[in-house]
């Protein structure tokens, strides 16, 4: 049970603690950290903002569900590198790896010597998992995602998410399918090092055919992470901003803005198994196992 609990939350812990790996970020000035970390923030946003629904049907009396959502996020090739910002006299024709890019770093030669940027972790398929609970009443559903405070060394990780969904189709008589709108807010915090806020608004529809339901939706979303880290000053660096120890606070926005979702669900009495694909800045394959009534 402890292992299962760990696996569920591993993704969130993994991503947030990756920010705390100072050595990885300590060669990045406040401009280049955005290019380097944006694909990571996008992945976090794509993961956290996934799995919000598998049906547009909302109980008119009372409903309850507890779900486990698993995701596989694929990072496209164009998010594996970025064009670094370099001082005058340096040529940035060659791109540098982002957080998901190849492991080897990169160095640029100019009048003040080499400027080195860190390598990535060389991964394009990122797993993510998250539990959620939902309660519905009179055509409105409230969804909760929550991780109690987890200690990771001297640091603490918190994750909290809240979603509200409302049935629109209940106001439209004889409509052959269910339609709902939903808003989701998620916050993840890793001590004072990382604080991320994710917002999503969607409209989705579903249609049941016996034990099978098909669903689809359009979602607008945003992800923003505040990142605090320390530049480890290197007097040999060609970049004057990297020569002395310095505290950096950077705000990194994800590239996730819109996504299209299409999927299906299999309802077996109180158990629902669903799978969908999310097409956006990155592609997310989501699967879920829910107990609901």
């Amino acid at each position, binding site marked *: 049970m402890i*292992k*299962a609990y760990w*696996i*569920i939350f*591993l*993704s969130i812990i*993994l991503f947030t603690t*990756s920010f705390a*790996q100072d*050595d*990885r970020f300590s*060669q990045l000035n406040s401009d280049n950290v955005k290019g380097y970390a944006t694909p990571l923030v996008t992945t976090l946003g794509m993961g956290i903002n996934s799995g919000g629904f598998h049906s547009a049907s909302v109980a008119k009396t009372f409903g309850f569900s507890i779900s*486990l959502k*698993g995701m*596989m996020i694929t990072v496209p090739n164009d998010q594996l590198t970025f064009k670094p910002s370099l001082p005058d*006299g340096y040529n940035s024709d060659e791109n540098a790896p982002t957080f998901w890019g190849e*492991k*080897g*770093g*990169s*160095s640029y*030669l*100019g*009048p003040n*010597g*080499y*400027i*080195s*940027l*860190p*390598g990535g*972790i*060389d*991964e394009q*398929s*990122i*797993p993510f*998992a998250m539990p959620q609970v939902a309660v519905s009443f009179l055509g409105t559903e409230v969804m909760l995602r929550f991780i109690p405070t987890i200690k990771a060394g001297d640091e603490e990780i918190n994750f909290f998410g809240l979603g509200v969904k409302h049935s629109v189709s209940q106001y439209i008589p004889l409509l052959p399918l269910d339609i709902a709108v939903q808003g989701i807010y998620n916050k993840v915090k890793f001590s004072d090092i990382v604080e991320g806020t994710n917002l999503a608004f969607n409209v989705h529809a579903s249609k049941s055919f016996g034990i099978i339901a098909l669903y689809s939706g359009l979602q607008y979303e945003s992800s923003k992470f505040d990142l605090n880290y320390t530049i*480890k*000053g*290197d*007097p*040999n*660096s*060609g970049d004057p901003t990297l020569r002395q120890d310095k505290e950096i606070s950077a705000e990194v926005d994800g590239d996730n803005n819109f996504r299209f979702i299409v999927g299906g669900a299999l309802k*077996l*009495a109180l*158990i629902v*198994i669903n799978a969908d694909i999310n097409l956006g800045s990155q592609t997310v394959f989501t*699967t879920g*196992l829910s107990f609901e009534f």
Partner: protein
Amino acid sequence: MRKNNKNIFIAGFFVLAFSFNGCLLDAFDTLTQELPYTYNLSISGDATTLESTATVNLDNNDFYDDNQGKINKIELVKLAYKTKEVNPENLQGNISLTIKQSNGTVIFSKSIPGNQPSLYTNNPYELSLTQQEIQLANTYLSNLSNKQLIITAMVSGLTEGPKSLEAEIFIVFEMDYDL
């Protein structure tokens, strides 16, 4: 039957999640970084051939110093030359760089094209290292107790008379270490 299907699905989900997270966790175990080093060389005198030597100490970098004992591999990846100051400005001479082990054994020697050091004032020249040269340096560095390299800059073909050259040598090492 339904119960079995459910159990298989749950088991499959966790196996899959664990496998992928296992791969991902491996990626966080190590970090590869390029570390820049800069060395100043000062050459002066009246002779027709002059040289100056600097010792590269890998310890002279906080990333290296902080992670000693966790380093899996360190390799030489880039080498560049820059003229900081030359006197007289139109000085002519052939510049060569020699990289040696700490005991003086030559690893490789490279020439800088053109015979005017002023060509490389504010415009560093990156030496094109062959695979064999890189391999020779990295064979030496693969013994992690070898933390020093010696760089000698030699200027030959000079005319007699007083002259001086201040140069910078830029080196990049790639270090792979455990987090």
